[in-house]
């Protein structure tokens, strides 16, 4: 159901007085899919301010906590049964009653239905939810999942909708005005323009939002978002780093997430090292580990961070590895400079040793340039990579393609390119490894290595935390020494705010869109 944009709304919009009520306006990139049915999106959780999952996050540490709908949870030893105890006083908006186990069961059905296109929904494949009592729900999983909480928090693959509303109004009800349970409730959607929320007075959790209305505006053009912020039309703007400088110069302030929300890397796609793989193209220059190392060493990461991230990012030692998750190895991080440090001489020596370019059937490195919402730096990144690689003596070409086009090639295992990738939110190690280093991932993509596969098989089945940690570390060690990818940076989510209206915003940057905890937006009176 779309709200028609008519002349009447236009007149009213123009006539409406600047409300006395305090409105926070956040201007951001449009989501990939505009719908109130979350499972019909790849995971842009635009409804985040109103709808909740079972598990929440600590805004400072990013750690899972019970700020969501569940007050506690337990799991069995082999990590196949997870039981959540719901908060008894949790209530849906608009009078749809308490949040119960039945709502969870109902929501799981919706999210795992045939029309679900959620990222990471494979983690819920085969999961069965069972209402033990009104406020207790048990998930039974076909395979152990140590990262099951990630489904409910961070990635947010399961968001709790009201069954009562569904029974009364069907999906139509969700389309019109979905009842959530957060401290802000759904007000309206202006298709193509944005989403509006309003404060819930006397919220069941006791949270008292410091403003009356939240408007999320979808504006595709970054320069326009900047203009809106500077003209006072928006209080908060999501801006590419390169234009943040202009905002800061005009007196705006950057508020980063408390935790890293995103990792970036360039992948050597097509490095299919498992024996007998028919998708392997033997002419890819980066099948030679010396070339992969040489490329890694051609890159001046500090300069790159200056260029792409305005200096506000950390060098990433291993893509998908993070101190918060399993298998983190300080040793690898320490060795990074020695093994990956910027060293053109070493790079050229490696190239010479490998016989580049003469011994290569196809010495040209195709670098993908693509636009991906949330990573506006990717096109510049491609150009910068070209600069670095050419400086070292590589032959390169830039290939432009949209992200969906890359997705198609990756699914077909035909993306024979050196292309950018991100890990956002920074996923638990098992998910990250599966996604980026294993043949078990979907799409099967860049780097597949028999040694990793062996470790991976065990890692996926293991329920022993120590063993898991060891296995993950082993995999990270292997990909590190194989120069499997070009790890680049670890970055925070950032918003730029107008300090006249916004005092601060504490958010951890751990969700798939980077932003959460809208109730923490601190407005100036």
């Amino acid at each position, binding site marked *: 159901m779309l709200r028609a944009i008519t002349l009447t709304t236009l007149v009213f919009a123009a006539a409406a007085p600047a409300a006395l009520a305090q409105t926070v306006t956040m201007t951001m990139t449009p989501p990939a899919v505009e719908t109130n049915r979350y499972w019909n999106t790849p995971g842009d959780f635009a409804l985040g301010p109103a709808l909740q999952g079972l598990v929440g996050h600590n805004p400072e540490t990013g750690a899972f906590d019970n700020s969501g709908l569940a007050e506690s949870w337990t799991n069995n030893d082999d990590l196949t049964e997870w039981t959540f105890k719901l908060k008894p006083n949790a209530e849906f908006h608009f009078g749809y009653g308490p949040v119960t186990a039945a709502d969870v069961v109902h929501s799981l059905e919706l999210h795992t239905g045939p029309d679900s296109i959620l990222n990471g929904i494979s983690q819920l494949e085969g999961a069965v939810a069972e209402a033990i009592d009104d406020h207790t729900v048990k998930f039974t999983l076909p395979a152990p999942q140590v990262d099951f909480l990630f489904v409910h928090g961070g990635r947010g693959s399961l968001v709790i909708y009201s069954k009562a509303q569904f029974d009364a109004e069907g999906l139509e009800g969700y389309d019109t005005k979905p009842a959530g349970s957060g401290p802000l409730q759904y007000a309206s959607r202006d298709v193509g323009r944005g989403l509006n929320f309003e404060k819930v007075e006397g919220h069941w959790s006791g949270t008292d939002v410091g403003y009356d209305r939240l408007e999320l505006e979808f504006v595709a053009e*970054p*320069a326009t978002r900047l203009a809106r912020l500077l003209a006072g039309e928006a209080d908060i703007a999501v801006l590419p780093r*390169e*234009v943040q400088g202009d905002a800061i110069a005009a007196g705006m302030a950057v508020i980063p997430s408390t935790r890293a929300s995103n990792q970036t890397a360039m992948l050597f796609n097509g490095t299919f090292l498992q024996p007998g793989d028919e998708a392997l193209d033997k002419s890819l220059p980066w099948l030679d580990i010396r070339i992969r190392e040489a490329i890694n060493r051609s890159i001046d990461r500090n300069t790159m961070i*200056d*260029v792409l991230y305005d200096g506000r990012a950390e060098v990433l030692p291993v893509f998908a590895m993070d101190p918060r998750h399993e298998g983190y190895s300080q040793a690898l991080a320490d060795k990074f400079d020695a093994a990956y440090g910027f060293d053109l001489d070493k790079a050229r020596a490696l190239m010479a040793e490998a016989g580049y370019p003469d011994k290569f059937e196809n010495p040209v490195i195709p670098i993908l*340039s693509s636009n991906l919402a949330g990573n506006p730096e990717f096109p510049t990144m491609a150009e*910068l990579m070209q600069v670095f690689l050419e400086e070292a003596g590589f032959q390169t070409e830039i290939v432009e393609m949209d992200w969906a086009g890359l997705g198609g090639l990756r699914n077909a295992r035909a993306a024979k390119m050196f292309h950018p990738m991100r890990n956002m939110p920074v996923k638990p190690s098992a998910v990250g490894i599966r996604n980026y280093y294993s043949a078990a991932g979907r799409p099967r993509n860049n780097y597949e290595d028999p040694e990793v596969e062996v470790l991976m098989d065990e890692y996926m089945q293991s329920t022993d935390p120590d063993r898991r940690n060891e296995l993950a570390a082993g995999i990270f060690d292997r990909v590190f020494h194989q120069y499997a990818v070009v790890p680049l940076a670890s970055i925070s989510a950032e918003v730029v705010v107008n300090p006249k209206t916004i005092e601060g915003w504490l958010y951890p940057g751990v969700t798939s869109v980077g932003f959460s905890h809208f109730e923490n937006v601190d407005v100036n009176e």
Partner: protein
Amino acid sequence: MRKRPFFDGLPVISLTILVVVLVIPALFADLIAPHDPYKAYLRNRLEPPLFFGGTTEFILGTDRLGRDILSRILHGAKYALSISIVGILLGAAVGTALGLIAGYLRGMADAVIMRVVDITFALPSILLALALATLSGPSFQLVIFVVIFVIWGYFARQVRAETLVLREADFVARARVAGASDLRILRKYILPNIVNTIVVLATLQVGVVVILEATLSFLGIGIPRPTPAWGLLVADGRQLIVSSWWISFFPGLAILLTVLSVNLLGDWLRDRLDPKLRQV
């Protein structure tokens, strides 16, 4: 005496601008550009132009990767020129050929060709370009294709209209009586009489094409990076329009000057060669 004071002398000026901004750079960019247009001086990123706090090293400043704007603009002229020439030549060739056929043969061929013209006009070219770009990715060829798609119809319509008149002319009738073949009549009698029209129309299309290239780049489907095509330079620099205005301003100026002088020249040519032509 005061007949057209505004235009007087301008052909010379515009031709000069065109040569300086477009032709010389396009032909001799390698010799006159102070830097390699692709060379990134990463230490000199976002340097302002000379007189705005910059140095003579980078007269028009540098972009976000520290590439010299002046050199990029000079090299970009190649692309502006080649897209214009290739695109317009092909577009004019297709349009003229079909326009000649339609106007000369009339009847069914005319109906079909003019319908195709209508259809090309009716299809939103930018959207088609976007759709095609998702298929094959942006490329030089795609830009050329879009250019041809956008402009051929104008040539076809105009050429057809004039051919319709010319085919009834006495000298064509005499040639026909003398036994000249259709092809010969078209080539020897009709085409020479519409060459002026084609030249004028083609000149006036240069502006359209340069702007179109910029628009395609804005939408991310122009000439692929890191090629320093003008449109791409403007589109790429638009985010930094406030602080690093020079990134988009100078290429924009190059576009402005080129289009301006080509249009002036086109107007002048039209007045000279083909006063009856009044299409934009």
